[in-house]
């Protein structure tokens, strides 16, 4: 298929293709980070993860509309405020959900699957009732659109760079919080042995609530960022949920490094195959490969070595 193209053309395409893979990688990491915290650290199977993302997207949409109407001069910078608001909104809803629903189910992790699935349906209908069944279009400031010309033939999309930067930032923050901060240690202590953690004076309820809130908040930020590349509608969250679980499970549920490694593997495989095959075939092959690997390594790529 490359017979007709010059070498520089090919070089440029491969560079852009590599970049496309990196963007996909960032998108996967951003989608999966919140779930990695909730599912990986707390063991809660949160089927409503996509809906928390879409809440972030709707908050972004509302912020953008508000800025257009009342503060058009500040519109170029609204996205940062929108992301913060998305984090707060999704995080707050997450804490509310944890308090009302999840905390009663810690001893029955499989039931969280059913409960959060129900929650996702409720949220979808709530969005539909509040914002209408149609998709909404989030308007972006001019500087976030279009692409940057790197050389004559190589162009990279600006929103891709933005997503990558955001992903790096959030990943570092989450890594710092979970691995190094005092609170992160408490989280891990609670996950490993709830009773013992309580006995040494950790307020386990508070830790649970904030951890769940943090995971949902990050989902909100991801949803906010995805308004740049995807759609915002009541059921748009469903588009992400499968890929998100795939990344987290494949990486090894309890490992943050695993999540990143698995996002990298899946995204590169997907985008390379998509280039040589068609979109549907690429997806089929990726899923088949993941099934095969998970059959050999049910615990995922990276598993914590814990004595059972």
């Amino acid at each position, binding site marked *: 298929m490359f017979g007709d*193209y010059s070498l520089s*053309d090919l070089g440029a*395409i491969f560079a*852009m*293709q590599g*970049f*496309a893979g990196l*963007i*996909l990688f960032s*998108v996967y990491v951003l989608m999966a980070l919140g779930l990695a915290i909730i599912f990986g650290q707390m063991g809660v199977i949160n089927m409503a993860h996509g809906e928390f993302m879409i809440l972030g997207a709707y908050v972004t949409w509302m912020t953008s509309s508000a800025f257009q109407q009342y503060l058009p001069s500040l519109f170029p910078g609204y996205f940062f405020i929108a992301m913060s608001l998305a984090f707060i909104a999704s995080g707050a809803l997450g804490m509310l959900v944890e308090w009302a629903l999840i905390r009663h189910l810690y001893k029955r992790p499989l039931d969280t699957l059913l409960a959060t699935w129900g929650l996702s349906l409720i949220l979808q*209908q709530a969005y*539909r009732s509040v914002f*209408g*069944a*149609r*998709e*909404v*279009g*989030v*308007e*972006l400031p001019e500087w976030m*659109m*279009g*692409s940057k*010309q790197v050389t004559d033939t190589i*162009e990279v*999309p*600006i*929103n*891709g760079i933005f997503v990558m930067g955001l992903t790096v930032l959030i990943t570092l923050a989450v890594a710092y919080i979970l691995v190094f901060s005092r609170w992160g240690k408490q989280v891990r202590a609670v996950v490993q042995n709830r009773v013992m953690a309580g006995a040494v004076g950790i307020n386990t309820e508070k830790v649970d609530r904030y951890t769940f809130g943090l995971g949902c908040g990050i989902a909100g930020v991801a949803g906010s960022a*995805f308004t*740049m*590349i*995807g*759609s*915002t*509608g*009541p*059921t*748009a969250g*469903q*588009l*992400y949920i499968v890929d998100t679980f795939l990344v987290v499970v494949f990486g090894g549920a309890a490992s943050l490094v695993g999540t990143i490694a698995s996002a990298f593997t899946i995204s590169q495989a*997907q*985008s390379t195959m*998509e*280039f040589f095959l*068609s*979109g*549907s075939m*690429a*997806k089929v092959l990726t899923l088949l490969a993941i099934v095969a690997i998970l059959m050999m390594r049910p615990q995922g790529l990276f598993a914590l070595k814990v004595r059972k």
Partner: protein
Amino acid sequence: MSDEKKPGLRSPFRRKLLMGMAALPAISMLPRTAFAEAPATSAVNTTGLAVTDSEVTVGILHSVTGTMAISETGSVEAEKLAIEQINAAGGVLGRKIKFIQEDGASDWPTFAEKAKKLLVNDKCAAVMGCWTSASRKAVLPVFEQYNGMLYYPTFYEGLEQSKNVIYTGQEATQQIIAGLDWVNKTKGAKTFYLLGSDYIWPRTSNKIARKHIEGHLQGAKVVGEEYFPLGHTQFNSVINKIKLTKPDVIYAIIVGGSNVAFYKQLKAAGIDLSKQTLLTISVTEDEIDGIGGENIAGAYACMKYFQSLDNPNNKAFVTAFKKMWGEKTVIGDVTQAAYLGPWLWKLTVEKAGSFDIDKVAAASPGVEFKGAPEGYVRVHENHHLWSKTRVGRAKTDGQYELIYETADLVEPDPFPKGYQ
């Protein structure tokens, strides 16, 4: 409260009221005199449909919950508007239309179940409904078994014809061939890159497009053809492939949430639609609402209706629609086709002089609707519509600007020879 305080019949007001009420039976006779020409129910309804002397019941069957609610909302709105207008104009054979709305919930078995309910329990004289081909295929056996009448609004892949269905949208050849001819003639397009979501409508449509490009356009060829799972959100790889092959035309039949992702990423990747020709048959004004006008401006769409069409019918329709559903709502091709459903049914019933399904089905061919927002339409022998095909160009405000329309009505051909 004591008994003495109760005025009872002794109150002069109460007495007057009662005297007034004596006149009520006379009032109930009024409609009959007002619609003196309305024929007797026993004559126009011989099969036990839900038709009374003053009312006729129809069904509305769309998804108002689930994934498809995004698309089907507009159809529901258009059908309700049409019904309201018909009632305001005196109804059908002197009877007001009453509608029963059921929710298909984006789930095909649910569609079949609700269709059965509308036909068997509610005895609906007609049903306006369905959107996806999958839902239509699910209800088709129900309509055929219980002998119902379905008005189906969506442009679709063709390869179907039923006594019990009137297809008010375009079938694939009507929508595709004129557009390809136009782009070939005016843009001199020779190379085409076909894209689609991975299900029956885009695949069948692209098959017809490929046959037409390779068989009927001089020197034209297809340089790529690709499908993506429904809900796919990452298009960077295929966009790179498009950049590499540099086709004259990107022919896109991507639907749903994927649409938004595709056009946003196309724009982000620096493909300028004012220079790169893109022709789509799946993006109506409804979809642009979600995509954002600035992301798709410059793209061409080929269908039969645009909200911006400049004719008196359409102006009245758009005004009425916005008055009923809000200033901000937009009207796409399918919404307009859904609006045709109740009107065509009314005209057919009046032509047949009966609500009976068999008579309506038999009377359908040749029914003309001169008040259609898209302009004149006529029902073909095969229960599809003769309609014009138009090409529009998307503007940043989310509307299409009409660029081209076929001189004559295009004949519907659901089983095109040489295209299968």
